[in-house]
């Protein structure tokens, strides 16, 4: 902190006048990158409010939020992973495995119903993280293996998926269908975790490490960032959040449904990328991810409103959005480099 006395007092600024303009462009582009999904979400919601009478109700809003709760948890973990430049394909499987484990364990109490899925999914996340960080295997392959393995494990403990465990614990069940201020408990739990996630990512050293690892792994390690530890932790977090999402969903459904979760990892990746996180790592926000998840949720809800429309159109529209966002991102990143 004593470096201020080093330079000659008349040292002129290295950067010239037109830098101010470049700085402004940089800020504007950065804002579009971060808030683009939010803007689109607001536009879509406004159109929906104007068009669909059924959309205009508190109940419908609460329904959208409750439906978005598990995907939000998964996308939250995915945001961390993608910012490090990785990917976690195992979360869809961990989600359904977590649900089955929670339903089974609920016979031993509400605590067990949470702890068992967290422990198992966290352990699988840990294995993912260790393999990725220490053997430098590609995250895509490692987590693809975990996707297959976890789904297999789920089928094994549920006799090929035919054995549906019912939730045995009333407190756990209540958590799934009870509400506070007319909004489901799960929404509150997810909101709390999202807030914690935002603070961790934006304001903790761990968060800074996540951005650094994704931004430039070599530079990060030369700057003393614990690269491997950071990687391990993001996969553990992703696993834990997927397991928790499964448990919450089991509480809501009252059983460990075995046919869920297929493709959920891809929805989460789509939501994260639509939310402005760079798939190449190094940049992104949780606020963007929230907008991404809600945007997908709202589109789904709208398609349900149009009674005679096949719900598969949701995927078509989501896909189109995703393509659009990726194109826009590429353009924005390039714009930022040039300025």
């Amino acid at each position, binding site marked *: 902190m004593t470096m201020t006395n080093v*330079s000659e007092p008349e040292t002129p600024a290295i*950067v010239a006048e037109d830098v101010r303009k470049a700085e402004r462009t940089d800020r504007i582009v950065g804002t579009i990158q971060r808030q683009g999904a939010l803007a689109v979400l607001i536009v879509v919601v406004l159109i929906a409010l104007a068009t669909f009478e059924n959309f205009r109700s508190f109940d419908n809003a609460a329904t959208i939020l409750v439906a978005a709760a598990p995907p939000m948890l998964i996308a939250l973990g995915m945001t961390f992973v993608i910012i490090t430049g990785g990917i976690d394909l195992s979360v869809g499987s961990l989600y359904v495995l977590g649900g089955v484990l929670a339903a089974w364990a609920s016979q031993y109490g509400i605590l067990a119903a949470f702890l068992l899925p967290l422990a198992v999914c966290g352990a699988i996340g840990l294995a993912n993280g260790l393999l990725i960080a220490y053997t430098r295997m590609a995250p895509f392959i490692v987590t693809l293996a975990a996707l297959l393995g976890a789904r297999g494990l789920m089928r094994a403990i549920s006799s090929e998926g035919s054995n549906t465990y019912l939730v045995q614990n009333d407190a756990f069940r209540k958590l799934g269908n009870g509400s506070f201020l007319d909004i489901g408990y799960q929404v509150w739990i997810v909101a709390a975790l999202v807030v914690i996630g935002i603070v961790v990512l934006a304001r903790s050293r761990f968060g800074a490490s996540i951005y650094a690892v994704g931004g430039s792994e070599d530079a990060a390690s030369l700057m003393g960032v614990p690269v491997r530890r950071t990687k391990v932790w993001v996969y553990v977090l992703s696993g834990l959040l997927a397991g928790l999402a499964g448990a919450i969903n089991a509480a809501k459904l009252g059983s460990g449904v075995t046919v869920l979760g297929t493709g959920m990892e891809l929805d989460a990746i789509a939501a994260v990328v639509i939310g402005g996180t760079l798939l190449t790592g190094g940049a992104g926000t949780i606020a963007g991810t929230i907008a991404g998840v809600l945007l997908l949720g709202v589109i789904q809800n709208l398609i349900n409103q149009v009674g005679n429309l096949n719900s598969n159109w949701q995927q078509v529209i989501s896909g189109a959005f995703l393509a659009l966002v990726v194109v826009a991102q590429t353009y924005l990143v390039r714009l930022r480099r040039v300025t």
Partner: protein
Amino acid sequence: MALLEVVDVSKIFPGVRALDSVSFTLQPGEVHALVGENGAGKSTLIKVLTGVYKPDGGELKYQDQPAQFGTPMDAQRAGISTIYQEVNLVPLMSVAQNLFLGREPRNAFGLIDRGRMDREAREVLAGYGVTTDVRRQLGTLALGAQQMVALARAVMIDAKVVIMDEPTSSLEPREVQTLFGVIRDLHAKGIGIVYVSHRLDELYEICDAVTILRDGKLVHTGKLADLERIKLVSLMLGRDMAEVRREGATAFSGSATGDEEAAPVLRVRELNSRHKLHDVSFDVRPGEVVGLGGLLGAGRSETVKAIGGAYHLDSGQIEVDGKELKKPTPVRAVKAGVAVQPEDRKAEGIVPGLSVRENIALAVLPRVSRGGFVSDAKIDEIVDKYMKRLRIKASSPDQAVGDLSGGNQQKVLLARLLATDPKVLLLDEPTRGIDVGAKAEVQSLIDELAAEGLGVVLVSSDAEELVEGSDRVVVLRDGVVVGTLTGAEVTAEDLMSTIATEAPREH
């Protein structure tokens, strides 16, 4: 008492003895030059000192205690900071975050105190002549400013030893003086500095002691003031001193090769790009080397990139060999006969993971393929030709380019450019970050290529290289051509005075 000491350290890589019983001692408050050609073992020694590599033999002592650093972080914690040759920061993070990464000021809840971090970052950077919004992404800053951030970061840690690997390679003279101010300040505080540079003037200006490595072996260590320049160069190169003397400071022949009467092979007229270039015009005749002079940010690189189709132009006209190059894109420029060697060879030039052969072949694939199939024999022929011609030192054409020394990487890049059969060669800092020997080779290659009739545009921050290598020098300042040096005017003094003349401020 020595601050940092290595005794008889060896490091062996498959097939190479990168360090062979090298000893090196750094005293507190000493600025110690570490010099040698590429492949001499400087980088390896630095990596041993900073915990990137574990030595295969020998001993490392820090403050008279045996030490072993498992990771760069261990070394940093112990007080050994390093700034690397090419900026090693995270471009997508803010300037302040880069400065404080891992040491962020935290509030009572253990959360990063952004306000304080930004404030302190601003204060610290002001001392390095960098005044910018510290919340900006680092990658949007100019290279020189990024380097200053890296330096500020390295120094900010309670460092006892600061290792600088070519810290001035992307700085302009004014920034170099700021850097030297920082170094003198560190020196006064008793901090030991290991200074790696290829610029002799800098070494003699700032360093107390020198250690010279060659082929992984220690060839000399002692006071720098006691060592004549010519002796230093000959020790580094391991050449006969008379030979070094005869060659002069650079390997350019000095004789003008351009034909005054010939039609220009490159005609550039009134290039304009928002804020960067204003009516830049010049000609290059076949066989002529035209230097672009000026300070960092004067528009030299932008001009070169624009001609190569890789930089946006608002208006302007480019003619190659009499034909207009309309709406230049890299593909159109290459087709027209323009070859550009970019400033940042790591990021924009070579593909480090690919072999020498593949790197050279990249540019010629369209020419040697027929119906989408590539003729191996033809590629081999071209690769062989250029490896011999440019004297590329690689164990085989299949060696990964990333494993070669900087000088050889540069030659591979040149080979790739030449393989496209260009009419005009645009070279942006062709000798940056490569050692004296390789530099000389690249310089004489430029001469040879011009003599064969190529039009060459040379950008170099090294004034001596620019004036000795160029037949004419077009001087740029703030994107405007402020003068052209020809004939006897092509001297470092004239270049400096042209750059330094008061600019009429209008835009």
